[in-house]
């Protein structure tokens, strides 16, 4: 399933979607970026509450398919701008991480 299809089926909010055709291979949830760096696999959707710019570096280096910011956390405009520049899909969920993952699991 592509990120665009995932958005259609889950109702996640799109902040930017510059690479909507990226296939989603699964989901990885986490907030400790080094932990994510060591464990997440290519093309997984990255579920987190972190909104600092390093989230994008981790996503780019691992070729993750998208970042999903949970709990309607406030997303700094520079993060959105930078995601667009780097070609990273940035989505937002109103639900906490667990419920977001459950929702993702029901469509993947």
């Amino acid at each position, binding site marked *: 399933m592509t990120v665009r299809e995932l958005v259609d089926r889950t109702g996640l909010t799109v902040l930017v979607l510059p690479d909507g055709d990226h296939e989603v291979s699964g989901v990885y949830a986490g907030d400790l970026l080094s932990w994510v*760096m060591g464990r997440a696999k290519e093309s997984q959707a990255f579920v987190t509450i972190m909104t*600092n710019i390093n989230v994008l570096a981790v996503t780019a280096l691992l070729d993750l398919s998208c970042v999903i910011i949970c709990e309607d956390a406030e997303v700094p405009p520079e993060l959105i701008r930078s995601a667009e520049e780097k070609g990273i899909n940035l989505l937002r969920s109103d639900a906490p991480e667990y419920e977001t993952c459950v929702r993702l699991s029901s469509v993947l």
Partner: protein
Amino acid sequence: MGNESLYYRFDVDGENFTSAGEASVQTKRILRRVGFSPDIIKRVSIAMYEGEINMVIHACGGVVELFIEEDKIKIILTDHGPGIENIDLAMQEGYSTAPDNIRSLGFGAGMGLPNMKRYTDSMEIESKVGEGTKITMTVNV
């Protein structure tokens, strides 16, 4: 590539935590251009990124050098930070001396050095307390 080896040098700005990662993103681009496999590119750039983050957190920046050789990619990280007192301890997953404000940015989980080891084929740490640290990592291609 023949017998040529390519060399690149990047300065890591110790003041700017948010720009950490520039060397690894550039390296990723370089390796892609040379034509390495995605797996090799990922391993090199992640190991380098963790190194950059460490330099910013602990050492007020440093220098990253990248050597692309025929059979391997070598990364040398050099800083003049406080040095590592106990390397064995620092290599343990979960051990961290990073300050709390770093944790709020999602780092300081004590995974940096273990990740660097995990993603490379060899890693050697030379460190002297009060003088600095040099880490040499290689990824075989």
